């Protein structure tokens, strides 16, 4: 009773915080906490020897990926291990270090495909990008590195199918 009248007096003379001000402070605190949390996630140390992926890939639209905030999903890690086992050592190393693999076209030897886990595949001719190839797994839940591996094998073993499936855009 005594405390209530004290608060009422304070509110009347404008010293005590108004309810709206308390809500604003609360919202501000939540916003600051989320910013701090995002910064921590971005600076999270990834496991040694794994390929960094763009934030949009790791925390993609699917629930499967968003559950693994701050670290690569286990399916992605497994895909990276499989890629390291199956690709020639130099390409596996390039993928680990630079996050991309290159494979020369068997049908058009002047062309070179550069496959990324988090970007559209680029097509090079004489060192310059001449186009892009858009292709992805039918099931969106496959991790990005599985798509890289799939593209690699399709380009290597059946490029004509790859050319038939992918959507190409030419860059001048």
């Amino acid at each position, binding site marked *: 009773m005594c405390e209530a009248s004290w608060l009422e007096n304070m509110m009347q003379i404008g010293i005590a915080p108004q309810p709206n001000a308390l809500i604003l402070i609360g919202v501000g605190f939540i916003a600051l906490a989320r910013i701090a949390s995002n910064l921590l996630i971005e600076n999270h140390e990834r496991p040694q020897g794994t390929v960094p992926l763009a934030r949009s890939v790791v925390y993609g639209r699917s629930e499967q990926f968003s559950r693994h905030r701050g670290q690569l999903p286990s*399916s992605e890690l*497994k*895909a990276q*291990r*499989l890629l390291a086992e*199956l690709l020639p050592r130099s390409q596996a190393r390039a993928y680990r270090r630079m996050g991309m693999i290159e494979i020369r076209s068997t049908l058009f030897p002047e062309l070179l495909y550069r496959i990324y886990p988090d970007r*559209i595949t680029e097509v090079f001719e004489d060192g310059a990008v001449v186009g892009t190839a*858009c*292709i*992805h*797994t*039918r*099931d969106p*839940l*496959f*991790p990005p*590195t*599985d*798509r890289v*591996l*799939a*593209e690699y*094998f*399709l380009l*290597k*073993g*059946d490029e004509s*199918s*790859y050319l038939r*499936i*992918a*959507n190409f855009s030419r860059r001048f």
Partner: protein
Amino acid sequence: MPTIRVMSAKGDDLLEKWDIDTGVEDLKLISKRFDVQCAKGFSAFTTSGTRLKSFSPEIQEDIIFIAPLVGG
């Protein structure tokens, strides 16, 4: 006897069904399962990159199935 590999994301389920790593050497069964995977849209390759349209007991290399791809 080749080892069958499948893509990682859902590979574990498929691998269990294949029973390859557990020593089942029934070639007819493997061949049948090969066709089933191909019918699902998976493509089979040897690890050196040759596309396989059907299973052959002469294959000595490991086989990897890759998930179906579509244009973006």
